[in-house]
């Protein structure tokens, strides 16, 4: 009986090849001109190229929304699933194939509204994958309805006199969830910072959650201000955090923050004055769910499995135990 997980996988060829950006490009993205999603796609493609990840070893799972068209434009395996359910499919992929890299992409409505239960529980499972929410604070694909992150008073087609509630703060929610192991925030108008954030997230073992504030010029043209500096922000800086480019500091102040400090992370997340960019929280010690589960499973060859099953059948056999 062997102990290594998935021996069969070793069959797959390990050809040495240098991957270029084009190796991660498929169909031309059909997002609007100026849509922040384009930038996220490039950032992910750069990440995969930098890490030299074979495209066939990545599964990109999404829900439904403008954002969730992502897998159609990334040349990896892709699963464009159901509105709100991306995290369940992604969990299934990773849980059954720990050897595969999983990238989950969702919109704010997708993840925080209809997908709320999976959001909550996936963070608790802490499966080893990278999770990106493209938060444009609106339902874009369905043409402008309020999302949980739409700000109070925001005009939308379902709130023509302004959204009724204070917007949901996903950061404080996430930081309240047991087993949360990685939370960072970036924005589509900060490509360098986004690159650095994604790198950090990719390298984390466990569920790394990245909220990306995303420009939607069609439905929310002024949402995050006209220029980067318009949107009140603060950069979290720490040796273990996301590096902040000097240039950025002209647009917003930096604040020192130790990503291991959950209490301070919550305080920062709560702050409604300035959006925090960078690594809010990080706990690299938590075991991932697939580790916990596979750790207790006895792996065996087909015949071994049948033999063990046959022994199990004995306990239901009509004979007395010896």
């Amino acid at each position, binding site marked *: 009986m062997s102990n290594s997980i998935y021996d*069969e*996988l070793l*069959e*797959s*060829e390990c050809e040495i090849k240098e991957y270029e950006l084009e190796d991660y490009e*498929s*169909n031309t993205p059909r997002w609007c001109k100026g849509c922040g999603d384009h930038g996220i796609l490039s950032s992910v493609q750069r990440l995969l190229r930098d890490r030299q990840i*074979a*495209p*066939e070893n990545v*599964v990109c799972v999404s829900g*439904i929304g403008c954002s969730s068209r992502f*897998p*159609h434009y990334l*040349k990896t*395996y*892709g*699963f*464009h*699933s*159901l509105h709100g*359910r991306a*995290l*369940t*499919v*992604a*969990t*299934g*992929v*990773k*849980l*059954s*194939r720990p*050897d*595969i890299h999983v990238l989950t992409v969702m919109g704010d409505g997708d993840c925080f509204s209809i997908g709320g*239960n*999976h959001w*909550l*529980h996936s963070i608790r499972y802490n499966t080893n994958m990278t999770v990106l929410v493209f938060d444009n604070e609106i339902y874009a694909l369905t043409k402008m309805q309020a999302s949980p992150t739409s700000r109070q008073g925001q005009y939308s087609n379902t709130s023509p006199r302004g959204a009724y509630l204070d917007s949901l703060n996903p950061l404080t929610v996430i930081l309240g969830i047991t087993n949360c192991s990685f939370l960072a925030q970036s924005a589509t108008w900060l490509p360098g910072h986004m690159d650095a954030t994604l790198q950090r997230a990719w390298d984390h073992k466990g569920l790394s959650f990245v909220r990306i504030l995303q420009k939607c010029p069609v439905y929310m043209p002024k949402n995050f201000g006209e220029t980067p500096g318009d949107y009140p922000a603060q950069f979290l800086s720490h040796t273990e955090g996301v590096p902040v480019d000097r240039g950025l500091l002209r647009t917003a102040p930096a604040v020192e923050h130790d990503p291991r400090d959950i209490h301070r992370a919550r305080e920062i997340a709560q702050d409604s004055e300035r959006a925090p960019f960078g690594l809010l929280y990080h706990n690299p010690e938590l075991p991932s769910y697939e580790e916990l*589960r*596979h750790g*207790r*499973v*006895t*792996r*065996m060859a*087909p*015949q071994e*499995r*049948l033999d*063990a*099953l046959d022994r*199990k*059948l004995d306990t*239901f*056999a*009509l*004979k*007395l*135990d010896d």
Partner: protein
Amino acid sequence: MQEKKRLKVGEHITELVSDSGEGAQKASVAFAKASALMGNGLWTVEVIPAEIQPPPHTVGATSGNRIRFGNKPMTNTGDLADVVVAFNEMALKGRMLNNMVKDDMLVLIDSQWAGHPVHKKTYNEVLDEVRRKGGTVIEVPIEKEAARVVDDPRRGKNMFALGVWARLYTRDLELVKSCVHELFAKKGQEIIDNNLNLVQRGWDWGEEHLPLEIVVETLPELKPMLAMNGNTAIALGAVAAGFELCSMYPITPATSASHALADFFEDLGGFVHQAEDEIAAIGVAVGASFAGRTALTITSGPGMALKTEFQGLAVMTETPLVIVDVQRGGPSTGLPTKIEQSDLLHSLYGAPGDAPKIVIAPASIEDCFHVMITARKLAEDFRIPVIVLTDANLATGQQMFDRPRLSTEMLPPPLDLSPVPEEERNPFDWDEKTGLSRRHIPGQAGGTAVVTGLNHSRDGAVAHDKDSNEHSHTMRSRKLATLFSTLKAPVPHGAEEGELLLVCWGSTRGAIEEAVDRMRAQGASVASLHITFLSPLQPGIKAVMQRFRKVMTIELNYSDKAGDPLITPDNRRYGQLAMMLRAQTLVDVDCWTRVPGRPLMPMEIAAVIAEELGMREAATSVTQETVA
């Protein structure tokens, strides 16, 4: 020692009932196992209260076991019980109220209540009623005698009762004791000794006081057999089929299948993931299956409702998937612990749009094991969700069946991650005739593509045009026609042609075939036809139906009764299989369906046959009760 009348029977139905927590289940397990080892055919079913801890000494607290055993393999729970061993009169009354016992039954009952200040009144009333109807009562000082051996007789009287019961049925005492020994093997010598002592004392009491003994005939031949309930069979079958992940959310009566799996799956190469809800459960299974592993999800009615959207996605993305629906009483929360067969149309049409799926229903506990292997293979070969419809009867009943021979053919081949050849890179490379296509597995170089719930063409690209939508619909539907072309026609049981054909599916098969046999013995021109594949419907059904004057389905689901107020042929709502057969074949298929929350009895079906064939007298000779 009392001189004993000896009664020899081909089979008997006997029940042991107590308040929940008094151990009737344990005693019954030993009785049943000993009987099986002695060579009886067997069907046992638990009698479970609907609440966790109902008030003691009430009808609702009745808990125990019903054992049907005899000289043939038992395929169903049978008719009315012949013998009831009861720890109190309310448990007995529960069985009478449920019409589960014969009028002329034999009752063994704990005599302690005869003088009880609170219960003596009902005790006497119930026993009077038994006697008035023609039953016989033997009062046994169960708790009193048990108290001689153990301090807390509530925890020992089950073994004393077992001894008396075993003596009544002339069980092999040593075998019974071995089975008891096995039950308590982990408990330490003192407990074992006490229990064996109690069994012996029960036996001795019977030897001394019982006025009769019953000999139940055995099977002609002994083969290597297993005994288990249907949910355990599903769990073991899932291992044999090579599943590696069961992703589920608890729900009665499906959960015990996951309990069984959770118990041994990790030692056998897989694991059970309890998800946050049913949607996540199926989503995880879909993800695992997309990733090339074999995954299943197990649920019941309300959980099925939550899985419909993902079923549609699995159909559209052509992701293999096995869904086991252990049917319970509906609609809504309904009767969670009770049997019904009313998720058939839901399985077919639960998802919006045209979402063709395979639907199979096992008829026996043995089928529960083997169906998992078939379902997994079909799901993978056809890239389609397969729904397996079992029910609460199969889930909790215990049956003996031939020990299956395991072979690696039951298992899926190991993951093949070799690169996809250039010309095979389309993720939906449908074969025009069959609709089949090859699935690519993450990790296979060159196979990178996106699957989506949106309409798409052969290459997986989103498409909005008429042609691709018509074509992909056709290809998905064609898969069912392809499977159909490989299926065999079902074979009728009983007459090859004649007056009446009863069509059925799922767990009612055993009871219906038994009724057919009985009525044929009385000269009835009747047969039954059991259908295993509900989607696609097996071939050849219409041809069989046309050989009979009248065709009707027998189903455990709701239908309007012809003749009820306001019900006309134009508005009558039919049983679920009846409706499908009528639509497919245009044969005037009638139906007799009920939602009693318990399995059908052969005698009920015999009465239906008699009624249809104008054989009222024949019916009363095989049934002891008029059936409403």
